Structures are given as C-alpha cells and as structure tokens.
C-alpha cells in the first residue's frame, strides 16, 4: 500500500500514537499495540511529548485550538516511518482532517500531508502494510464486533480485524445486527445530547445481546467505553475488550468496566 514511503531501515520505525482514552482508561491497549507491532517486525517508539489529536476542538468548531494541537502532534511524529494509532477515530483525524486545517501551499500543510500519508489505524496497518495474516493468540469466547464509524468510513477498517480475529485459537465471531450503525458516542455528542445518545447506545446493546455473544470487541475506546458503560449499567455479563488486547493475547485482565469483583 505504502511502498512509496522510503523506510529508515529494514525494521520500520513506528511512532505509537497512544490516544487520550487509551492513555487514561486502558493502558493495556497501548501495551497490546506495542506487542502486535513488535511481533510484526516494527521498531516501536512512544513519543513522550504527544498530545491529543485535537478532535474535541475540531468537531466543536474550534479550528484554532485544533490547529495548535495538530502542530504539536506533527512535530512529535514527523521523524517516524509511520504513525500508528489503536483508534480509527484519532487516526482518521490525522489522516483525513489535518491537511484541511492548514491553508494550501503553506509549510504546515506540507508537513501535515506528510504525516497524514504515514498515518494508519493499528489493525489495518498490521494487515495492509506489514502483511500480517495471523496472530499467535488464544481466546476462548463467542465474540461480536462493533464497527466504529470513523475507522469504518474514514480509514476503511472492516475486514482487517475480522481476518486477524479468525486466526485466534478458540475464538468465534457472530455478527450482530447493524454492526455498522453508530453506538451514540460521537465524542461530545454523548454529553450534549445525552437522551438521544442513551437511546442509540441502548439500541446497540440490544443488538449485542441478540447476537448471543459473550464478548464485544471493537477498535475505538470512545465507543467501547460508551457501550461497556451501558452494558454494565444493565448488569450485562457481556465483557468488552479492544480488539488489540485479544489479538495480542493480553485479554486475561478484566474487561472494560469490569473490576476484580465483576
């Protein structure tokens, strides 16, 4: 796919864009991402000075703050062969929207475009760029998969996670109804329109329940926190994991929203 990008060495240098929600709520996803990338032959780095991708500002119409944050991210990541994020939403922001934040033919536009072309969502990066076809992991569960909107529609993530999951020993995947319909998170949407968001996430958890799966998987922490929060409020036994945790064989920890007691 990105054969045109000249690599710095045989092992591509990957800057891991951790994302705020993984940093805050689910460090295990970050470590899982590192393991998957290293297993695929990447030289993984985690820039300490990385900041938020700026989506909350951008989607609230605050382009100035979004632009300032974009500059910080670009500075932190332009030295790498690739920027990889365990989130279709943050990766989509960088890949699709960063270039639009800067006026055409300005140096920042060029830099933004350069980082954008090197930016990937984690699982599609593994399959499409690193040509990973299978993982060495075990997870005995009947799972279902939620297609997060930005990953699906901005980054084209749909078949890649399913293909990798098919190689996990013991795992079966049952598709839920409307797996590609929004869960109602939508960043600030869920707090600006909590009642509508509640109805949407309730619809999503109903689809999950009807699928009969024991585990929900997905690729974006925003959606997963939303859906897990709703499942747990309803005392559902369905456990929620980021797909990367399962693929890396690191899903022995309690699921999202489940503590030691649950």
């Amino acid at each position, binding site marked *: 796919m990105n054969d045109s990008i000249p690599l710095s060495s045989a092992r591509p240098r990957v800057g891991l864009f951790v994302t705020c929600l993984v940093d805050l709520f689910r460090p295990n996803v970050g470590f899982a991402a590192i393991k998957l990338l290293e297993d695929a032959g990447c030289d993984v780095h985690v820039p300490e000075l990385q900041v938020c991708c700026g989506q909350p500002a951008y989607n*609230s*119409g605050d382009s100035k703050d979004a632009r300032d944050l974009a500059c910080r991210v670009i500075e932190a990541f332009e030295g790498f062969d690739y920027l990889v994020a365990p989130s279709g939403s943050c990766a989509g922001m960088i890949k699709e929207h960063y270039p639009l934040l800067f006026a055409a033919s300005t140096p920042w536009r060029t830099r933004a475009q350069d980082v954008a072309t090197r930016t990937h969502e984690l699982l599609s990066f593994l399959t499409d760029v690193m040509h990973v076809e299978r993982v060495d992991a075990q997870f005995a569960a009947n799972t279902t998969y939620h297609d997060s909107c930005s990953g699906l529609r901005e980054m084209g993530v749909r078949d890649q996670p399913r293909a990798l999951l098919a190689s996990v020993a013991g795992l079966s995947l049952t598709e839920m109804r409307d797996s590609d319909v929004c869960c109602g998170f939508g960043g600030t949407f869920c707090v600006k329109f909590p009642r509508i968001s509640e109805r949407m996430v309730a619809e999503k958890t109903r689809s999950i329940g009807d699928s009969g799966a024991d585990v929900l998987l997905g690729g974006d922490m925003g959606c997963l926190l939303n859906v897990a929060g709703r499942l747990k409020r309803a005392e559902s036994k369905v456990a929620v994991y980021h797909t990367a945790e399962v693929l890396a064989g690191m899903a022995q920890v309690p699921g999202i929203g489940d503590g030691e007691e649950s």
Partner: protein
Amino acid sequence: MESQAHNFKQRADVALHDMELQKALGMLKGGLASKRSVAVAAMPEFDAVRDAGRDIKEHTLAHLDYYLEEFERNCVAAGGQVHWASSVEDAREIIVKLCADAAAKRVTKGKSMVGEEIGVNEALEAAGVDVLETDLGEYIIQLAGEPPSHIIAPAIHKTKEQVTELFYKHHAKHGKTDRVTEVGDIVNEAREVLREGFLSADVGITGANFLVAESGSSVIVTNEGNGDLTNTLPRVHIVTAGIEKVVPTFEDVSTILRLLGRSATGQEMSSYTTFSTGPRRADDLDGPHEFHVLLLDNGRSEMLGNEFHDMLRCIRCSACMNHCPVYGTVGGHAYGWVYPGPMGSVLTPVMLGIEKTNSLPNACTLNGRCQEVCPMQIPLPSMLRHLREREYTQRLTPAIARAGLAVWAFVAQRPKLYGLATRLAVKALSLLGGKKGRLRWLAFAGAWTDARDLPAPAGETFQQAYRKRMQAKSKGLGG
C-alpha cells in the same frame, strides 16, 4: 412555515417519549435503508452513475445562470411563464396572485418540499383559497394539522391506527362514517375523497424533481399518480422549484433518475415519472391552459461557491435521513422546520441563520453514514463541521462549553501539564471505581452517568506505566 429548529433539544425529548412515534420509527428502521441496499447491490455500475450524476450537477451549478436562462427561454417558447422569486415572501405573493387571477376557489397540490419552504398552504388559506394535499401521506398530515416529518414519506411518523382515527374524524362530511382499518380500505377511502378534489380544483401546484433546460420541461416522480391528476386536470398548473433543480438535458435527467429511485425507496424507477412542457396545445386532449414555473432562490445563490456549495447537488432522495441514527431515534419533527435529518441540519441553518438553529449541526455524531449513501456524494459531516465553526467564531457556542474547551485545549497543548493532570485524574477515578472497576455516578458527569456507568481507569496512565517499564528495562540491562 415557522421554524421551531431552536427547540430541537426539547422537541427531541418529546419525541423520545412519544410511544406512537417510537412505534412508527421502529418500523421505519431497516425499511427504506435495506430496500436501498438491495437495489444498489443489484446495480454494479451504481458508483459510476453516482460520479456521472455528481458531475452533471457540478457542471450545471458552474453555469447555473446560463441553464436557468435557457430553461426560461424554452419554457416560454412552449407557452409557459417563468416567475423568479428571490425570497419566500416573493414566492407567496406570486402564487397568491396567480391563484387570484385564476379566480381559484380550490387548489390541489402534489407533495413539494419547496412548497413547504414557501408556506404555500398558509398563504393560500389566508387568501381564502381551499387547499387540498393529494399525496396520501401529505393528505394525512394535512388532516392532522402537522408538517411533514420526512421529505418523501411525510406521514412516516404516523401509525396505521392513527390514520384510521384521522379519517374517521374528518371523513364524515364526505359520507364516510365507518372506521376503516385495513390498508387497502384506507387507501380506497382516501382515493374516493380526493377524487372530488381533483375534479373541482381550479389550480394544481406541484414541485419539481428536475427542470430540463433544453426543453423548458418540469419533471416529477411519484408513486401514486396524484401528481398527474394535479397537473393535468385543473385549468392552471403552477410548478414551484428551487433554482438548483435545473439540469441541461433529458439525458441528464435519465442519468440522475437511475440514482433517485434506488436511493430513496430502493425502486429502480418510481411508478410515475411525468414530464410537463408548457400548457395544453391545440391538439392535446387534456392538460392545463396555463403553465407557470416559479423559480425560488431563498439563499441558494449565496451557497454557490461557498463552503455549502455541494449541498446544491442534493436531489431530495432522503437516503441521508433514512440512514441517520439520530433521525431514526427522534424522527423528523424534532428538527423543527421543513427539512429534517442530515440534509436539513445543513440547509436549515444555512437558510434561516445559524443563530436560530445552532443545535442542529451539533445533533450529529459525525458517523458519516449519510455521506456514504448520498447519491450526490455530498460531504454532509464536513458541512456540519463548517456550521459548528461558524457557530464557534460567532460565539454562539454556550459559554460553559467554550470555557471547558479553552481549559482543556490549554492543558492538552502542554504535554507536561497534561501528563500531571491525567495522572491525578486517573488515580482519583481509579480510587472511586474501586474493585468494581466502574463508577455509577460522578460529579459534573451526569450527562454520561445518567445512562451508563463510567468504566474506571487502572490507576496509572499508559505513559506512566510505559516509562516505568522502560526504566526497569534499562536498569535490568545495566545491571
């Protein structure tokens, strides 16, 4: 029609608790959307036709003045008359005058969203003219005294039982005193009642799906045939159309028609596609004696070339709202004006001003499903973002949200400060979450915790844990 768009949030809350509406929306879910996906899958060249359709519209918009004048020339040559209205006020005045000139007592109407935009019914009723909607859905909501909730299925929010009651209440004066409960009987009763109207109307008003520049024709697509009776039986036919409806040729119409039916209802073609060119000619057996086309601007020409330009390609198919999870949850009336769903959340603020409608562009998760299915490839999410930007720069964003955003942005741009703040927050939340690993309630986070738990963090941020791990590793190597 007076806008209630500023009350979106309250109206949405009402909709969420309206059990009849929720029942109707439940039946809508999957209906039109799944029909579309079957129809699109059966047409391998759909994407190529989509590109062609977009190119036709873009070409036309780039030469809009030329094609509108060509349309006018050819319409007049065919014996029609063209009226230019820059605002809805102008449009109302023109329509009322045309009806007065025709000494009209009764007007029949085909369903027209531009008609709703203009407020044709209110204007004519105020002038003492009896107005009868002839599209079944539109007729139902006229009886109910409601605006449409969907641009092609105006009564989609009504259940069959509600229609039974409406007919029972309103049809006694037509000698229909029984409650009709079967769909076939409901349709037949409407047909019989409407027939009197068709035969007694002096003026018929329809919208237009297309205006054809090369011939001066207007085109409507319907499934009930009511449009044909509206534009052929009365002495005068008035077409109301936005200026963006013009396309150069019949060939162009046929290209876009292949997209329209499939995107709207999953039909290859609607049941009726009717071309009207001028009034009745000497050897015609039927048709109106006068043919008028009213071209409405109402803010459209200002959109040419600005960030909302692409919206002018819209062919009003409704695919965006049929696939919108927010529309599917609250229905069309919550949006408060003529156009609901994603296309409405763009058009309403653009036409009425963002200051009166600023909930609409925010009432979207930016999930992108609308853009994915739009036959004209209109980047609806980007436009909603443009509107949010407009709202933010005009300082219409609520003060509390602005303040929150400012504090967050200040911290987020300073990695060291951000690291400190997040470490503290994560520690605190993890303590609050305790062994259950989640919070049922959190101060100032009611919007989240009213409906769902907040999964608690693990006690350390990733950055913290990662740095520790790297230190341990390097010590291990050193020792």
